């Protein structure tokens, strides 16, 4: 197992390096860099201005040279400077990354804690009224676009009932500490988390139900029952544990996309996360911010896949790594 993990970490680093160059190169192919936009939006922008800024930004150098400069700084921990927001990238991304992490993890935890038990329940009562009702609600959850649900939540809970704030991350200028601060953050998390959870929960219910139904028809379940094991042990230890393997894959993939997956929710609820920043940095050719976003996303995908592989071995002892 140790050598497997080491090998995968090495692969991760190589893949990250190759993909970082691909991303950098693709960014340079996009039409309309920040200087182009300045030229087209400002009638006073001259040829001299364009050339001066290209020299200053290093845009007059070859792609390889620019990439090498970026890489040498990045490996030293210097991720550069955002040319759109005019602040260091680390200052810009750091706090937002944490906010997105909190939002996404809260939504994921809630979705899993609701989705898996309900998925198991309806799998065990396949064809019952409960099964049909949950199926109906699941399809509704999957079908309703998150932005629509978000607006509905804002209208109900913020405009009409004034229960939760319509947007933001925390109460501005409140100077709260300790428990009061946590409660304040929770208040701003409720609606975006609900918005994200609705769809995720529905997916987990569907995946768990399907996987659990398949597993409960396997021979080893019949053997376990024949041995006289209690039903709860058969379900939890033999059924659920095996049924969770495909769910783990889905969860790993969900985690890897949490960085950019909450763009719509963050935008709707003015939540100070990293999703919209990533989107804007790519649209606005803010190279340094976009590259850090890519690296984090690539890293998350690779690390989460590694974590999923390790979890498979834990869930199913038949799987081993050599």
């Amino acid at each position, binding site marked *: 197992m140790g050598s497997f993990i080491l090998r995968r970490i090495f692969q991760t680093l190589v893949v990250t390096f190759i993909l970082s160059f691909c991303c950098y190169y693709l960014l340079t192919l996009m039409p309309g860099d920040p200087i182009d936009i300045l030229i087209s939006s400002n009638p006073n922008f001259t040829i001299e201005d364009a050339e001066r800024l290209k020299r200053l930004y290093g845009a007059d150098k070859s792609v390889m040279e620019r990439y090498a400069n970026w890489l040498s700084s990045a490996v030293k921990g210097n991720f550069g400077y955002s040319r759109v927001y005019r602040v260091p990238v680390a200052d810009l991304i750091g706090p937002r990354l944490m906010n997105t992490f909190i939002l996404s993890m809260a939504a994921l935890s809630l979705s899993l804690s609701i989705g898996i038990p309900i998925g198991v329940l309806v799998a065990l009562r396949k064809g019952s009224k409960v099964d049909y009702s949950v199926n109906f609600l699941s399809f509704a959850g999957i079908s309703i676009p998150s932005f629509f649900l978000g607006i509905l939540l804002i209208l109900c809970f913020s405009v009409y009932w004034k229960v939760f704030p319509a947007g933001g991350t925390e109460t501005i*200028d409140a100077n709260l500490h300790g428990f009061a601060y946590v409660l304040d953050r929770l208040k701003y998390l409720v609606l975006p988390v609900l918005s994200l959870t609705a769809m995720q929960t529905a997916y987990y219910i569907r995946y768990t139900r399907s996987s659990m139904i398949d597993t409960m028809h396997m021979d080893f379940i019949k053997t376990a029952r024949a041995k006289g094991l209690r039903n709860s042990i058969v379900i939890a230890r033999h059924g659920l544990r095996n049924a969770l393997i495909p769910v783990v894959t889905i969860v790993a993939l969900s985690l890897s996309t949490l960085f950019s997956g909450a763009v719509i929710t963050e935008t709707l609820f003015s939540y100070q996360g990293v999703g919209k920043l990533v989107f804007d940095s790519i649209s606005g050719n803010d190279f340094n911010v976009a590259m850090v976003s890519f690296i984090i996303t690539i890293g998350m995908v690779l690390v989460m896949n590694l974590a999923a592989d390790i979890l498979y071995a834990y869930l199913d002892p038949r799987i081993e790594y050599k």
Partner: protein
Amino acid sequence: MPKKIALIALCSALFPSSLLFSVDNRELKIGITQEFENPNPIIATMLATHYLYGFVGRTPNVMDPDGNDVAMMAVETPTLENGLAEFFEEDGKRKLRAHWEIREDAHWGDGVPVTGHDFKLGWTIGMSDTVSVGEREKFDEIERVEIDPENPKKFALVYDEPKYSYFRAFQHYFVPSHIEGPVFEEFGDENEGYDKNTKYVTDPTNPGLYNGPYRIAEMKLGSHVIFVPNEHWKGHKPTIQKIILKYIPNTATLEANLKSGTIDMISLIGLRFDQALAFDERAQKDGLPYTVNYKPSLVYEHIDLQVGKNEILKDLNVRKALVHSIDRDLLCDTLFDGKQKKAIHNAPPMDPWFTDDPEKIVLYRYSKRTARRLLDAAGWEMNDDGYRYKDGKRLSFQLMTTAQDKTRENVQIFLQSQWKEVGIEITIKNEPARVYFGETTRKAKYPAMAMYAWIKLPEHSPRSTLHSEGIPTEANSYSGQNSSGWVNKEVDALIEALELEFDFEKRRDLAHQVLYHYTNEVPVIPLYYRSDVSVTPSNMEGYRLSGSLIPVTSWAEFWDLKN
């Protein structure tokens, strides 16, 4: 019992009474949909940053909402008429010197007086090759800054190639030399060294960075900025005690944020025009306590015609027929409720160069009959399928604009149906703003028509948009904005002459001659002049939209929320 108390405590924390909002002078929360950068005025490029800087910084003079140039930090605006500006000879060259004096009571937020050294530092930073300043023309045109050794409040700007706009110093900013001077000295030599280390980035709440009625008390990029009154501001005392500028990226939720009390007003960088109209109607119907403010602006929405490359559009009769066949009054009434007005050329009514005198410019009334006659004369004959043909080729144009801009898409559909009535086919192709402005319009790659807007200051020379040297080519790195490819040597000469004309009447006359050629030759179809729009609480007084590039926040100290 303890459970009940815990529940009540939780509810109180989650649902505080502050959510039951009221708006008074204690606090005003403004929603804005564009993110802001660090507030260094010399390197800022975003509109949102200039909006926020208006609360905290003041320029030597400013253009007020009526279009007049008025002194702000300066005692008086220097002009040739009041004798504070003068021509002089130096090295055989005719130069101009403008004498400025800063108000005696002008101070930075830490109590240090604002002086000519602060102006000079701003100009020096703007001229530096290592600082990422965008357009440098405003710095370049000043040859040097001379500070009075006796009184640093007095300084003179020397122009070696003076232009008539020398007295407009509202695009120049003071930078506190006692704070930023050492930073520029230390990092000014390295590429973007100053950009990264300016105190506006590293210490944005330092009161000494701001000389306006407010200072920044808290700033969180991507979230909000809090402004509180600047204790050292000696002008009109601000009445609102705290202003919060809150970033709300989604325009669709602005109204919900307003109604829920998360914000109290929507800045002019907020609602789209159609959203504002819809909200205005709802607010009036439901008696909501908000006022929707409209102000005709200097933004000119138009369609560039590819007269340089498109063979059909080279025919003047076709271009004139295109204008005659669209009812722009109906367009403005239908889509904008009459709150945005029909454009007749590129100088909006707020510009002193505006004229609607039919003896000076060519006006086009809506007339399908005239349009049909012009197209017949051009050889385009109507066919049974409802379109015109010439030599077997259909009269068809591609109309391009920015994708996902609902207002422009509605205008496209309106125009398409109007042109269809005279036998012209319009195909629509829209692109994301980044591609459209970064490639298509910048390199004049559109085949026939490109719809977009220009914003300019009053009396701004149209050199880049109308002079033939402004035609974007590979040779000039596509830096010109005459994307129509229109060439008129007489217009070139008129533009060159008006830039050097210091007499207002004569300059206006030259501008009117340019407008005559512009309207007569129709390289561009004028559509409408846009209006600025914002939403304020009904009890707010002293708020006036500027309609220009000058941020409305330049008069924030006069805003008053009456009880």
